[in-house]
Structures are given as C-alpha cells and as structure tokens.
C-alpha cells in the first residue's frame, strides 16, 4: 500500500490532525483558519479511542489515501449539512464554516489530482448496452445482442462503472459469438427481396381460423362485420386476435414491415376506448392507442418481424366497463349484445422494407465490392455451410487491395480513432492467412471483422492521462449522451481537432441532446438513478391492491397503468431536459404528465385518452414532483407494504446525495405485518427506543414518514389497507374490482426534520425539501458525472461540482444547463 503522505497537498491536510501540532503552531497561508477550526470545534469529541460515533480525526494520517479522503468527505458532508458540531455544543458561525469548507474542498481536490496521477477514470470496457448500441451503429443492424452477454455489475449505482466491469472468459466466448451473429445478419446473399403490400379483410377465411377469430371462445365477443373486427369483449387469453395473413407474409419474408391500422369506437354512451398492440411472438409492445368516436384514427407502426410474427390487437379493459354498466359478460353460447365496441376498420401492411439495396449493413462491410454467385467462384474456394450455389458473395478482382480499402474504412470507425501505423498490418495478415488457407474473400474478411470486434480497441474505452484528446472526448460525449459510438458529425469534429474548443464541445453536446438518440441517455440514466428498471421487481398484492390488475383471475396486470407509471417519469425528465426546466421540479412541480388511467389512479380530475400529456395540477394537490410519482413510490416499496426507512434512505441517497451510514450488523429489523393490528410507525417507534438507533433514524425516517401518505402502488391514502383487522368495505369497487381488503389504521404522514422543522404531510415536507435545491442539483451533477465517466464522484471532485452547480444556478438550475455544465467541467474533459 502506498504511503498516504506522498503528495504535498495530502501531507498538508494530514498534518492538520495528528496531534494537531502544526495547526496549533500557527496559521499557514494555504490552511487559512481550518486548523484552528478543527481543533476548537471537532477534536474535543473526535479524538482518541473514545471518540464519539467511533469517528476519529486524529488518526487519519495512518490510513491509506483513498480511505482518508473518504473520511474527509464525511467531515465535509456533516459540516455542510450543519449537523456538526451538534446542537448543544458551541457552534461556529456560518462564515467560519463556509471558509473552512472552501479550504478543505480545495485541499481535497489537490490531493485527488496528485493521487490520481494516471487519471481520475480507469480504462473500462463497454457494458452490454454500449456494446449492443455500438455494434448496431457500426454495422447498421438491429439484432438484439445484449442478452448474449453476462449481466454487468454496478459500481456506485451505475452499470457502466469502471470498477465493476470485470472481464472473464465467458465474456470472450460471448463476444466471439455475438460478433459472428451480428456480422452474419449484416450481409446479403441475393437480390433485393420484393416489398409487398397487404390489405387485410378480416372476413377472409384465412383470418377466420380456429387459432384466431374463429375460435369458439372468441366468437361471442368478437364479431366480424363487413371485413372489420368489432371487439365487444376480450379475446381468449391463449388465443389473441392477430392477422394470420401478416403472419404468413413475415414467415415467407421476415424483416421490417410498416403496419397501418385504423380504429374507432362505437358506443351509445360516447366513451372512447383504447386499443393495445403488441408483437405476437417477440412480445414487443407497441403500446396503447386511442380509438376515437366517429372518424377512425390511423395508427402506424414499424417493426422488425421475426418469421411468422404478427400484430396482436386487444381492447383495453372492456370487460370491466361492461361490468360497471351492468351488461352481461358474454361467453359461449351467449353473444355480446350492445355496449361499447372497439372497431378495427382496416389493417394494412407493407414489407419487407429496404431503404436501399444492398442495405447499409452490407455496405458497412463490403461497400461497392462486386457480387458473384458461389457457383461462378473458383472451384477451390470453400463454400460456407448452408449456402446455395446461386447465392451471391463479394468477389473483388484484387482481394488484397480490396481488403486494405475495406479495413481502412472499417477499423477507424470500430476503434473510434484514426489508425496508427501498426494497426493495419496484423489485420491484413489475418486476411491473407485465411485466403491462402482456401477461405473465400467473404470468409476471410468476416474473420478479420470478427477479430476487430473482439479486439480490445473496440471493446475498451481507452484514454490517456491528462486532458482527453479529441477522439477520446468524442467517445466520452457520445457514450454519455447517446450510449453509443460517435456519429459522423462528431467524428468529423474530432478529426478536425476542434472539440478542445469549449464552444464546439457545447455545440456538439446540444446537438446530441436535441436528437432523438439522447433518449438512450435519459432512459438508461433514469433506469439506474431512479431504479426504474426495478419497476417489476415486485408485483402488488392482489387482495390489497386490486387496482393494479386488469384481470384478477388471471393475474393480468393493468398494462396501461403499468406503462403509464413508467412513462410519466420519463416524460417528466425529457421535458425538463428539452426545455431546460429547473431541477427543483424533482421535489415539487405544478404540472404532471397524465392520461386517463393515471389521473384516475391519482384521484385527480379526469384526463381524456391514453396518451400522457402535461396537465396542470389542482391547487393544494399533494402530487407534483418526482417523489410523488407512482414509479418512485412503487420501486421504494414491496408489493404489499411500505417502509419509511427504505423510502427515507432512498431520498437521502438518491435525491440529496447524503447516503446514511449502513446499519450496524446487529441492528434490529422488523418483520412486516399487514394484518392490521399495528402500523409500521408503531413498530419503528419500539425499535428505535435506543439512542444509538435514533441518531441515524432521526435523518433517515422523516422523508419516509411524509411518503407514508402514498401506498406501494403510489395511490394517496389516509388509511392503511389490512387483510384481517379493520373495517369491512364490502360494497366498494376499486377500478372495477370488488374490494376485499379492510380499512386499517389511519396513516400519520407527519414528522420532524433533524433540524427541528415540523411537517404534517407530503406537501409541507416538499416545501422544506425545496430549500435544498442547490444540494439536489449537486447530487444530480455528481450522478451525471459518474454516469458519464464511469467513475463516481469523490470528495476530491466537490470543488469542481460546486462550480458546475454555481454555473447552473445562473440558469435557474435548468436540467439541460446542468448536463452541459457537467460536460464542460474538468471532471468530464480529463481522464
């Protein structure tokens, strides 16, 4: 282990403390008043073996540098939070604290710079997502690849953290396989397939089969009239309605198809319905679409269809609507009469679609190489298994010269940098070796391409210490904002060596943020920062939360609710990013993105349609801000109950960036009990009687107490729901389901912040939290920096992060401004 005292800045910082001799000897120019500050305000309690909270500041010199930095980070955090010195002790003035913090942060920054001589960030490989995206962009293919690779671990909450991206033999095996499959899917073997048009009449006997419309269970509720489908109820769960003719078409010629569907609702009560579309085999969801009254709406979808795949159409929630209107549920032999009908007026498809031929994927590998049939190739060339004599293969007149041209174009794109002189020769030699072993040009080139895709220059993001060069910077920017390799424009900017100019870097960042590709950044970042990818980790209890289900009997989740919950949070941030709205909206906001289902879920005034749109919230609403999004409330709960400890710790860590210390190994726990006899707060109160527990829980629990006003699926509640004890609610319906849960004890969503400020519920709590906007912005900046560089922010980065936040403060903490300030920071622009 390295001596902690190697760096002068470190020596300076450490010399503050051991024995505190130097500090007492007199102020030092660089130290300012920090030395005497620590002596008079900290050392009294945090010195020696009996130090309070087992936190000593007099033995930091004996620790490894990184560990010492972490401890100094804690000192800074407690000072910033105003938690130390504690209430009851002599407390330094605000100015004195600010001065000490400024000095400490700059000393920590200096120390970090010297300690991390080989760069702040480590070299890292592409993670699964980055790998797949890079292959897709490089080869212009859309083949899913990420599931072939082992799952990536996370470091500090992000799965692109350098520390966690280990590499193992199984990676190498899978890289070989993935590259082979991707390359095979990129090349063509024949002339352009014919693009066919298909217009479906559902009166066609081909559609009226037992596997589809003609199924006995489907016929009573799904009528075919004049070639159109009339949904009066749901299809049989195992016999979903799709187009058999489209399935036949994709079986004969799989590939990309454009499907156009028109639909309208026929209903004497004038309630427009919702159409759900998904791919039948791949289960890809196209989503929920409005089916208007009167003039049919046109829905256009494009999708890569696997052989035999088709589009499944289903009405949303029709059964519950019939039930609520007192209409009988049809079933063999009783035919549905009256009630709302969702009508499919027309169904057309066109495909397989090819923008160009040969497609861009083939051109990426064999651009402008003439094609020949295998039967016309020299007799000694080995024909790959499974090829027909009439299949085509690239056949250049001069293989070696052609290989040089193709690789010269491919390798710099794959490696995301210009080639150096030694790069090309081994690849050419590989091609030559294969050619002389009797392989065809195609096979020899594919072997070289496969080698390139398995080589560390493709798989790793390589950076040199110091300020990043143009191409490394281009890669960092591109993988940050598009989660993939640089595009043509960015590559040209790097080739022109202009990214070092902050204005050009900002311009490129803006351009990428404006392009739809930036959704890849936003979605992946939210998936991880807010754990949206864990939304399905638990399924809500059917008895306690029936609203989450469309059909309780089959446990079919209410898909519109489930997708809206996720979409709300994504749209909220996309709007902040596009319009540079302030990050204070995370805590509270006057608007929310809602559709008809989510408005109902939140108990807000009705909103029409399935599409989420920005809606102004009523004055005095408890909603508003990310903390009241059902997505967050769901991922911070389990399926049947909530814990203020879990939610509180989540707010501290994810929103404020002040993670609580982990519980000691012998901390107690509470066994969840939803029978209704006790509430979680009563159980917690017993558990926290001890002063040691109370110390941390004073900070952890209050945000969780405020969020107790929301149940595990994000509904507002005044009472807990219970299974055994409590008032019976027999006659009540919840989203069309008869209620089985009981009304349990009332919810207390009030609490007191550690600073003594009381709140009575979420609204007052949010007002208090809103005062912390600069801290929330800094936490977000730190998360963005971690996500962008693969290295989490540590105390040495605080100074620069404060600068980033100060810059964003001038733009009212706009989210977009914050992202761009992070990109302009030293943290981003140096290794």
């Amino acid at each position, binding site marked *: 282990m390295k001596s902690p005292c190697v760096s002068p800045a470190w020596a300076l910082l450490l010399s503050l403390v051991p024995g505190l001799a130097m500090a007492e000897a007199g102020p030092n120019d660089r130290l300012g008043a920090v030395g005497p500050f620590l002596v008079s305000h900290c050392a009294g309690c945090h010195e020696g073996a009996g130090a309070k909270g087992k936190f000593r500041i007099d033995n930091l010199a004996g620790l490894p540098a990184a560990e010492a930095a972490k401890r100094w980070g804690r000192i800074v955090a407690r000072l910033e939070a105003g938690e130390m010195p504690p209430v009851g002790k002599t407390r330094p003035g605000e100015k004195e604290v600010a001065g000490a913090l400024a000095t400490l942060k700059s000393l920590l920054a200096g120390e970090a710079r010297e300690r991390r001589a*080989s*760069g702040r960030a*480590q*070299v890292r*490989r592409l993670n699964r997502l980055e790998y797949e995206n890079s292959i897709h962009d490089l080869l212009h293919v859309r083949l899913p690849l990420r599931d*072939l690779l*082992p799952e990536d*671990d*996370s*470091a*500090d909450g992000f799965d692109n*953290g350098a*520390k*966690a991206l*280990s*590499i*193992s*033999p*199984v990676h*190498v*095996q899978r890289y*070989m396989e993935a590259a082979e499959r991707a390359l095979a899917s990129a090349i063509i073997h024949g002339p352009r397939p014919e693009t066919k048009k298909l217009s479906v009449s559902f009166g066609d006997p081909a559609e009226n089969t037992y596997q589809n419309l003609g199924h006995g269970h489907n016929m009573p509720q799904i009528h075919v009239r004049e070639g159109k489908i009339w949904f009066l109820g749901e299809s049989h769960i195992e016999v979903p309605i799709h187009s058999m003719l489209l399935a036949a078409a994709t079986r004969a010629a799989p590939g990309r198809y454009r499907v156009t569907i028109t639909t309208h609702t026929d209903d004497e009560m004038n309630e427009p319905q919702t159409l759900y579309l998904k791919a039948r085999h791949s289960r890809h969801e196209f989503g929920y679409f409005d089916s208007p009254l009167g003039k049919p709406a046109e829905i256009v979808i494009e999708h890569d269809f696997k052989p035999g795949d088709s589009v499944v159409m289903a009405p949303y929630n029709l059964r519950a609507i019939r039930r609520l209107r007192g209409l009988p549920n049809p079933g063999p032999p009783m035919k549905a009469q009256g009630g709302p009908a969702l009508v499919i007026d027309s169904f057309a498809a066109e495909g397989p679609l090819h923008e160009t031929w040969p497609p861009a994927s083939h051109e990426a590998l064999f651009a402008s190489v003439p094609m020949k049939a295998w039967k016309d190739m020299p007799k000694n060339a080995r024909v790959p298994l499974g090829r027909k004599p009439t299949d085509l293969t690239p056949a250049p007149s001069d293989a070696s010269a052609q290989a040089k041209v193709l690789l010269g174009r491919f390798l710099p794109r794959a490696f995301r940098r210009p080639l150096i002189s030694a790069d090309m020769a*081994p690849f050419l030699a*590989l091609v030559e070796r294969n050619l002389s072993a009797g392989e065809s040009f195609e096979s020899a080139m594919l*072997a070289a391409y*496969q*080698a390139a895709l*398995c*080589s*560390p*220059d493709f*798989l*790793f993001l*390589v950076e*040199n*210490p110091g300020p990043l060069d143009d191409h490394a910077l281009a890669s960092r920017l591109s993988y940050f904002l598009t989660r993939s390799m640089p595009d043509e424009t960015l590559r040209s900017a790097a080739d022109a060596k202009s990214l070092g100019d902050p204005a050009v870097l900002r311009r490129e960042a803006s351009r990428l943020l404006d392009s739809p590709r930036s959704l890849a950044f936003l979605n992946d970042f939210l998936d991880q920062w807010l754990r949206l990818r864990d939304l399905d*980790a*638990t*399924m809500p*209890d*059917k008895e306690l939360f029936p609203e989450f289900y469309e059909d309780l009997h089959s446990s079919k989740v209410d898909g519109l609710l489930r997708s809206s919950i996720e979409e709300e949070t994504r749209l909220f941030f996309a709007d902040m990013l596009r319009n540079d709205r302030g990050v204070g909206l995370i805590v509270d906001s006057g608007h929310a993105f809602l559709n008809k289902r989510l408005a109902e879920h939140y108990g807000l005034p009705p909103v029409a349609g399935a599409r989420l749109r920005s809606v102004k919230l009523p004055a005095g609403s408890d909603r508003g801000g990310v903390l009241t999004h059902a997505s967050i409330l769901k991922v911070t709960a*389990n399926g*049947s*109950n909530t814990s203020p400890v879990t939610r509180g710790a989540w707010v501290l*860590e994810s929103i404020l960036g002040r993670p609580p210390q*982990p519980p000691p*190994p*012998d901390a*107690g*726990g509470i*066994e*969840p*009990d*939803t*029978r209704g006899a*006790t509430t979680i707060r009563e*159980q917690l109160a017993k*558990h926290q009687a001890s002063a040691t527990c109370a110390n941390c829980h004073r900070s952890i629990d209050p945000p969780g107490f405020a969020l107790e006003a929301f149940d595990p699926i994000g509904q507002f509640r005044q009472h807990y729901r219970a*299974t*055994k004890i409590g008032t019976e609610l027999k006659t009540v319906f919840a989203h069309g389901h008869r209620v089985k849960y009981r009304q349990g004890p009332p919810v207390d969503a009030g609490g007191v912040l550690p600073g003594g400020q009381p709140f009575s519920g979420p609204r007052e709590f949010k007002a208090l939290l809103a005062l912390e906007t600069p801290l929330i912005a800094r936490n977000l900046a730190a998360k963005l920096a971690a996500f962008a560089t693969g290295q989490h922010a540590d105390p040495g980065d605080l100074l620069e992060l404060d600068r980033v936040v100060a810059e964003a403060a001038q733009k009212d903490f706009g989210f977009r401004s914050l992202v761009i300030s992070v990109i302009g920071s030293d943290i981003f622009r140096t290794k």
Partner: protein
Amino acid sequence: MSRAPLSRRTFLRASGIALSLPWLESMGRAVGAPKQPAPPRLVAIGTPFGFDPQVFIPAKAGRDYELSTHLSHLKDHRADFTVCSGLSHPNTGGGGHKAEAVMLTGAAYPDYSYNLKNTISIDQQFAAAYRGQARYDSLVLTTYGGSLSYTGNGVNLPAIDQPSRVFSQLFLASTPQQQAEELRKIGAGRSMLDFVGEQARSLGRRVTVADRARLDEYFESVRDVERQLQMSGAWVDRPKPKAPVAPPRDLPGPATAEQKAKLKLMFDMIHLALRTDSTRAITIKTFGGHHDLSHHGKDPAKRSACQSVEVELLTAYSGLLSKLKESMEGEGARMLDSTMVLLTSNLRDGNSHWTYDLPVILAGGGFRHGRHLNFNAPLLASLSEADQNRPQAIPPMGKDQQPLCNLYLSMLQRGGVKIDRFGSSTGTLTGLEAA
C-alpha cells in the same frame, strides 16, 4: 490410472493439457484395470425467498431430532441428509434480494448500495479442479432469471433456462459434416484468439500501469478461452451418450408459473447429466413465482400459500435424491454417495428479508448424515416461543455461529479440491464428518 486407452489423444498430451478420459468411458475400456471410485460431484440448488423457519427448522438439534413439517417431505431420505440452522453469510445484512448474488460465494454485501465485489461460487471452484474431465466443466441452470454462478473475478455466468437445451447439449449427436465444421470453427476461433491476445498485449504496453490490470484480465480471459477451445476440440468427435429418454418439451406460459412441472423437468436433466458423467458441477436457481406471497405480512392465508410453494421445491428435491439413490455405480455404490446435493437460500425467509440464519440442507456426497446441526441456539428458542406475534429483532451473528462458507469449504475438501479457505470461511464446518 491406466493410460493405455488414452493414446489416441496424443495431440492433447503434446499440448500439455492434463485431460483424463471421462470416467464412464475409461470404466468401459480399461478392462482388468483396478476399479476406480466414482468421481465426486456437486449440485447446488438455490432458491431466492428462503423457507418459513416456523415450519422448516426442526425444534431440536442433534441426531434424534424430529422432522419439521417441511422436512417431513424428505422423510424417505432422513439418513441421507443433514439439516443446518443458524448458518449465515457474515456481513450481508443489508443486501436483501441482492444478496442472491453471494448465496454460493459468501462475498460481503453489507448494504443495498454497496459495490459488490463478488468472488467465485462453490460450483465454479469445484469445476476448476476437474477441468476437461467431463464434456462440460459445469452446467449452470435456472428456472427463471439469472444464475447463481460466478467466476473468480465475480462475473455472473449466464444460465440455461430451457430443459430442451440442456437435453440437446447432453445428447444431440452431430453429423460428421457438422463435426468437421465445428472443428474448423474451433481452429478459426483459436487463431482469432491468438490474434486478439496479441492486440491486448500491444495495447497493454500503451496504457498506464493502473489501466494495464484490466487489459491483463482481458488477455488472461482470451488465453483461457483458447485453452477451453483446445479441450472442446478433443470432445467433438467423441460420441455423446445415447439419450435414455425422449427429449423434454419446454413449458410455455409465464416464466414464473408452473414451478412444479418446471422443477421436475430441470431436475430430471440434472440427473441425466450426472448419470452420463457429462459434467461434475451443476447449479440451479429455482424460482417459484411466490415473491409476492413471500411478503405475506404474517397473513395466515398467504403464509400457508407461500409454504405450499416452498413444499413444491422440497418435493422436487426429494425426487432428485430418490433418483440419485436408485442410480447405482459399481457394487452397492449409490450415485448419491458421490454426489453432494446442497439446497439453500440467500434469505431466511421472504417476509423478514433477513440474510441470517439461512436454511441449509446437504444430502449425499459421502458425509455422515441424519442430523440437525444448529449453530445459533437462541434461534431455536425464538422459534419455539409461544407468542409469535411479538415483533422480533434480527438475531445478530452470535459467537457460536459459523459462516455458511465453512460448510462450502467442507464440501469442497470432501470433493477433493485442495483448498483451505473459501469465501468467508473460518475453517471447515464443526460437526460435519465424512462417512
């Protein structure tokens, strides 16, 4: 060991790789050679939501303990398994479900946001000792979701979730043409890896010392796959065993449903893989789709529904043990006697989410079984307490408790792995002896 039947594998010997003949094959060929004992094998079964301790853990420790309600489903095997209570992975207190990752490794996972640095899982440690001796070094299976197997540097190995795929790996014979193509691909793969390894080495020279470690890791991985390809080249023209049964049909439907049928299919595949000596190390993650039920909040109806899902797994486990007992290897030797079959979880039970006092059953493998080994006496006392409604605190890791990794170390040593530490082990498990 008689080397004579090995002569056709000369190129392998030339390459310096110790590749012994598969045990079954050498049994058949080396006529007159001294009888070899059956090779040790390991099966680790992990389930994510534990077992309800009220009905799982026997009230009394020792040899004359009375089977608990849950364990009564294993009553036919009472003499062939040991049940352990009070074992834990230390320092995994806040991991919750995420501690699933350390179920078979014992790495620290103190809290949810901790940066897990996982270590090798017991099956991979075991497999490493027998590399190349069977067609597959290990089989990594799941009935849903990821696997429980981890490499030495903590990478999660992908799992097979379709019984039909296991079957085709075990039994599906390839045509001579396919074999030739496979050999050609192995050759091409090796030459490519050579190439890529060189690239990694040359890039390693251009980066800083701190970054070089990662590229070294890559280089070593490339070398390792090259060795693997070399070994699998030796297996390509060796005929696969004849399938004793018809191929299984995978169950469609939601991935979490039909646990009972899925377990049976997969456990049958495990038995076939062992019987044909296709592998020596197997892990399987079972998933009962009862995550929601496991958060039963002590509601009696849900709790009992949750318990019946747990029983499905115990019944399947019992079925596997029966099959391993019926399969004989040589005179009077049951396959179970050379096969350690572990069943455990990362949670005590789903409702508490506690990562301490884990449920553990070990069957077979030539240990002296038939006992309940308890390592946390207060746990037994708390379970027999009359008022089960009283909120309980997580029992701390008491001083009498031992890490679950002590059991893993005992198993590895029993399996012939030369090792004196595994994960968080402090020694071998007290009270567990070889038969």
